[in-house]
C-alpha cells in the first residue's frame, strides 16, 4: 500500500503541474487521472468508470481571468482511488459508484481553496522576485519561477496523498457499513450525475444553432439504441 501511495504522489505531482503551472497538455483531466489512480490502487477499469463521468461534470466552469474552477483533478484522484478500493470482482456497484461521485465534490471544492492559497503565496514570490531584481540579482526571475513551480508541485503531491487516502478510507471502512439495500437506494441517484455532465457540455456549446442539434442527437441516439435492442 505504501508503494501505491508513493506512485500516486508522483502521478499527482505531474498532474497538478499540468493543471496550471506547466504544459497544460490535459494530463490533469479526470478521464486520464482516474484510470491511472485506479490502476495504482488495483483496478484500472473501476477508475476509468469514475473518470468518464467526472470528466464532464465541471467543464462548464471555465478558468477565465482570476476565477478558479473546482478541482476536478483532485476529485478524480479521490474517485479513482476509492473506486479501485471499493470494486469487487464484478466491478463497482451502482450505490458505491454514486456515493464516490457525489462525495468527490468535497475534494473538488477543497482543491479549489488550496489552489487559491498557492496563488496567494505566489504573489509574495513575485514581489520578492522584483525586489531581488532591483538589487541586481540576475537570476531572480529564474529562481522566482522555480519557487512557484515547486510550490504548485508540492501542493499537488500533498493534495494527492490527502485525496487518495480519503478515497481508500471511504472505500475500505465507510461504504461497507451500508448494506445492499442502502446501496440499491443510493444507486437510484446515479443516472442524474452523468446527465449533469451532458448538460455541462450543452451549456458550454450552447448557441442558437446548437440547441436543437443537441436534443435531436440525444433523441436519435436514444431511438437508435432502443431500436437495436428491440431487433436483438
Amino acid at each position: 500500500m505504501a508503494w501505491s501511495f508513493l506512485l500516486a504522489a508522483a502521478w499527482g505531482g505531474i498532474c497538478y503541474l499540468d493543471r496550471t503551472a506547466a504544459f497544460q497538455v490535459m494530463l490533469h483531466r479526470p478521464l486520464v487521472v482516474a484510470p491511472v489512480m485506479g490502476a495504482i490502487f488495483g483496478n484500472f477499469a473501476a477508475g476509468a468508470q469514475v473518470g468518464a463521468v467526472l470528466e464532464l461534470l465541471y467543464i462548464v466552469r471555465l478558468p477565465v481571468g482570476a476565477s478558479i474552477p473546482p478541482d476536478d483533478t483532485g476529485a478524480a484522484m479521490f474517485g479513482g482511488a476509492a473506486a479501485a478500493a471499493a470494486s469487487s470482482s464484478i466491478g463497482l456497484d451502482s450505490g458505491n459508484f454514486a456515493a464516490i461521485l457525489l462525495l468527490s465534490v468535497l475534494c473538488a471544492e477543497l482543491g479549489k481553496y488550496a489552489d487559491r492559497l498557492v496563488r496567494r503565496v505566489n504573489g509574495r514570490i513575485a514581489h520578492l522576485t522584483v525586489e531581488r531584481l532591483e538589487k541586481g540579482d540576475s537570476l531572480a526571475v529564474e529562481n522566482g519561477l522555480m519557487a512557484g513551480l515547486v510550490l504548485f508541485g508540492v501542493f499537488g503531491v500533498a493534495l494527492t496523498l490527502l485525496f487518495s487516502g480519503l478515497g481508500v478510507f471511504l472505500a475500505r471502512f465507510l461504504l461497507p457499513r451500508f448494506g445492499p439495500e442502502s446501496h440499491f437506494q443510493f444507486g437510484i441517484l446515479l443516472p442524474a450525475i452523468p446527465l449533469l455532465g451532458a448538460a455541462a457540455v450543452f451549456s458550454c456549446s450552447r448557441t442558437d444553432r446548437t440547441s436543437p442539434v443537441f436534443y435531436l442527437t440525444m433523441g436519435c441516439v436514444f431511438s437508435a439504441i432502443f431500436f437495436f435492442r428491440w431487433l436483438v
Partner: protein
Amino acid sequence: MSDIPLRVRRRVWFRQFLLQACWNYEGMQNVGFAYSILPALRDRYEGRPEEFSRALKRHLEFFNTHPSMATVILGATIRLEERVAEGKVDPRAVGTFKVGLMGSLGAIGDSYFWGALKPMASVAGAILAFVHPLLGIAMLLFLYNSSHLVLRYRGFAAGMGGEESAVRFLKEAGFTGKTEDRKMIAAILGGAYGGVVASHTAYLFGGAWMELGVFLIAALAVHLYTVFFRKAVSPSEVLVLLLLIGTLILWQ
C-alpha cells in the same frame, strides 16, 4: 527577419510552457512571461547590464492572457525588443503593445480552447471510454493537443515574424469559425452522450412506454441543469443537493 539565433528561439519556445508557473493575483503571468523572454533579452542586451535589467523589469509588469495564445505576443514582443535594443523604438511601446493584445487574445483563447475545444475533446473521450478507457484517453489527448500544440508553435512563429505577421496569423487562423464548428461538434457529441445515458437508464426500468418516459425525464433533467447553470448555480452545488437527497434516502 529576426537576428535572434535559433538556439535562443528554441529556449524561449520551451520556456513558454511554464508561463503560469508563478501565477499570482497581482501580476498574474508576469513572472512566467519574464522567464520566457529572458534568453532573448540576454542575447540582445549582452554586455549592457543596466539596459538588460530595465528590459527585464518591463516584463515583470501585469500580464494575463490565455496561456496557449501567449506565444503570439511573446514572439512579437521579442521582435519589438530587438528594435528597442537597436534604439529604433521607444521602450514604452513594448508595454502598450502587450496590454493592447493580451485582452483580445485572452478572450479569443478562452472562447476557443476552454469554451469549444476542451468540451469537444472531453465528450469525445468520454464516449469512446465506453468502448475502451484507453481509446477515450487517446482521443481526448489527441483532439486537444493536435490543435493546442500546433497553435502554440504557429503563433510563436507568426509573432517572430513581427506585429504585422502576428495580425495576419490571427486573421487567417479563423478562430471565430473554428470555435463555432467545435461547439457544434461538442453539441452533437454531448447529445449522443446524453442519449446513451438515458438509454442505459431506460433499459434498467424496462418496457417500451417506460423507456419513452425515462427519455423525457432525462431530457427535462438536462434542460433543468442548463437553466441552473445559466442562473450561475455551480455543478458543485447541484452535486451537494444530490448528496443531501441521497443522505435523506438513507436516513429513511
